[in-house]
């Protein structure tokens, strides 16, 4: 089972992004996803700089796979233009996060993968997309281990299980929703048009609690993430047993390296030397329950 580092969902300054990925060159991850997936107004790095970063990671760590991840909600013509440039990069595999990307890639017969915001809920859908060039998919976060097991069994029956890699979002604030509105701007009483790129002040998103101080959501511009952090560390053996190919860790500004190390050790049944603390874990979705619940 491989380990991947998902695309950075938050908005960080350029230097912080470059330092982060510089450090990740030494991290025991097999796959690194790069690119802006949330908001087209965030321009710490443009596609050219993401590509430079991708190339520099490949130069330093040739055994790592680098994938470009695309914008999740396409609304404007300008965003389609950028999307076309991602899809036509000619060098790196692309993770499609919107059906527009699936279309652009499949019509050019470019093999692709899909992220968690593509609605794949059954094996029939996977089989159709596989014919279009799908090589790897990330399961929507709200699906359970049981559903995944059922899908994998069906893929086996269809004879395509070995031709598709299955990736599970396993650590981090889960991407739950996308909107035309910017909630971070709204929280600052700013219009989306004049948002001042406020997201940059929240390297791990803006916390929303209920009026009883229960952590509910994490705002990240137009994206709403879970308030608690998904953590499937203890479920890694189950995933291995059922045939999950890749485990995804979502980047954060704190302890990502330690997390990766601990996950890596667990996957390889090594002694766990790296420790990390999650004060607000959840894993309900995996057990077919409300996502916010935590099973010991």
């Amino acid at each position, binding site marked *: 089972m491989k380990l991947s580092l998902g695309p950075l969902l938050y908005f960080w300054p350029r230097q912080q992004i470059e330092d982060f990925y510089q450090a990740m060159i030494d991290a025991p991850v097999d796959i690194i996803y790069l690119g802006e997936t949330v908001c087209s107004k965030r321009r710490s790095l443009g596609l050219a700089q993401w590509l430079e970063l991708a190339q520099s990671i490949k130069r330093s760590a040739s055994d790592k796979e680098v994938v470009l991840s695309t914008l999740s909600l396409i*609304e404007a013509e300008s965003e389609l233009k950028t*999307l076309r440039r991602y899809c036509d990069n000619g060098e790196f595999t692309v993770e499609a996060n*919107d059906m*527009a990307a699936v*279309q652009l890639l499949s019509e050019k017969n470019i093999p692709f993968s899909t992220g968690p915001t593509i609605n794949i809920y059954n094996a029939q859908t996977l089989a159709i997309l596989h014919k279009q060039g799908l090589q790897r998919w990330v399961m929507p976060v709200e699906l359970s281990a049981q559903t995944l097991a059922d899908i994998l069994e069906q893929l086996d029956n269809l004879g395509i299980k070995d031709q598709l890699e299955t990736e599970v979002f396993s650590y981090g604030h*889960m991407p739950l*929703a996308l909107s035309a509105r910017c909630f971070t701007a709204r929280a600052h009483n700013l219009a989306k048009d004049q948002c001042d790129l406020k997201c940059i002040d929240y390297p791990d998103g803006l916390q*929303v609690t209920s009026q009883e101080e229960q952590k*509910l959501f994490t705002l990240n511009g137009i994206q*709403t993430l879970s308030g608690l952090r998904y953590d499937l560390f203890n479920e890694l053996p189950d995933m291995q047993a059922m045939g999950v190919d890749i485990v995804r860790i979502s980047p954060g500004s704190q302890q990502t390296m330690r997390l990766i190390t601990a996950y890596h050790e667990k996957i390889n049944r090594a002694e766990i030397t790296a420790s990390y603390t999650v004060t607000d874990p959840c894993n309900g979705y995996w057990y077919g329950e409300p996502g916010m619940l935590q099973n010991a």
Partner: protein
Amino acid sequence: MMELVCPAGNFPALKEAVNNGANAVYIGFKDDTNARHFAGLNFNDKNLPKAIDYAHQRGTKVFVAINTYPQPDGWQRWKHAVDRASELGVDALIMADIGILDYAANRYPDIARHLSVQGSATSYEALRFYQQNFAIKRAVLPRVLSLAQVRQLAEQSPVELEVFGFGSLCIMAEGRCHLSSYVTGESPNTCGACSPAKSVRWEKTPRGLESRLNNVLIDRYDDNENAGYPTLCKGRFTIARHTFHVLEEPTSLNTIELLPELDEIGIKAIKIEGRQRSPAYTQQVTQVWRQAIDHYYASPENYTPLRQWSEALTRVSEGAQTTLGAYSRPWQ
């Protein structure tokens, strides 16, 4: 002429839509195969044929929404829904799942396929995917696009477009929101339910009337406030000790003033939200929109929404206020 597509959660609502001038009604089965899987709502094998007859005899089309996403253990149920609706001769199937679209396209090629708003296609490139692979005839656009963006999309769309004209407003891109399953275990995509009624609890407390969803406090109301249904995205939550409608205030979408623009852009149909609402709602909203559309086509240059229309619509609006939603720039 733009088609008026109205909601019918039951037979009485369907009759109201038909009798008040809907060009088409959209309905669903009594299970999780559609995005309004609510108790006491929708049609079963017994009354569906009668409903279709009633509409067809009066020249109204019937669309059936099978627009949630089947997981492996539900596949047969979704397939059966497609079979049943097709055998009864409905005018279109409204679908979102790629597997189900494929099944319908292969098995019943002559029944029109509409891409549901739950399919979440927000660009002409995404629409081209569904058109090329499943020959969809029409797509319902998510309520995230501005009017300028709808115009751009329409210019290059390979299929007919239907947009929402009125009703409750999803603040999130439809088909891509898991807020409800995160808190309750059920979402629109998986169960056809958002903030499901069975998870709702109301409680009078010394601090006010509280609404809870699976025990999470969604809102708390003073005596002089109107309490609304505790939909997750419309709750009052807290950021840095400041409590407000963090995501959205309870409002309804109303685009009646945009009719000329929508027609000029080439929008083929206006959809009214609200299969979960009463027959009286369907009657009221269908009547007003029928008048508005007829009024517009009678004299396009002189179209101005009548005040009584807005008043009638406001009376049935959630939160008793309306907005142009994403169609207007300030909202974005």
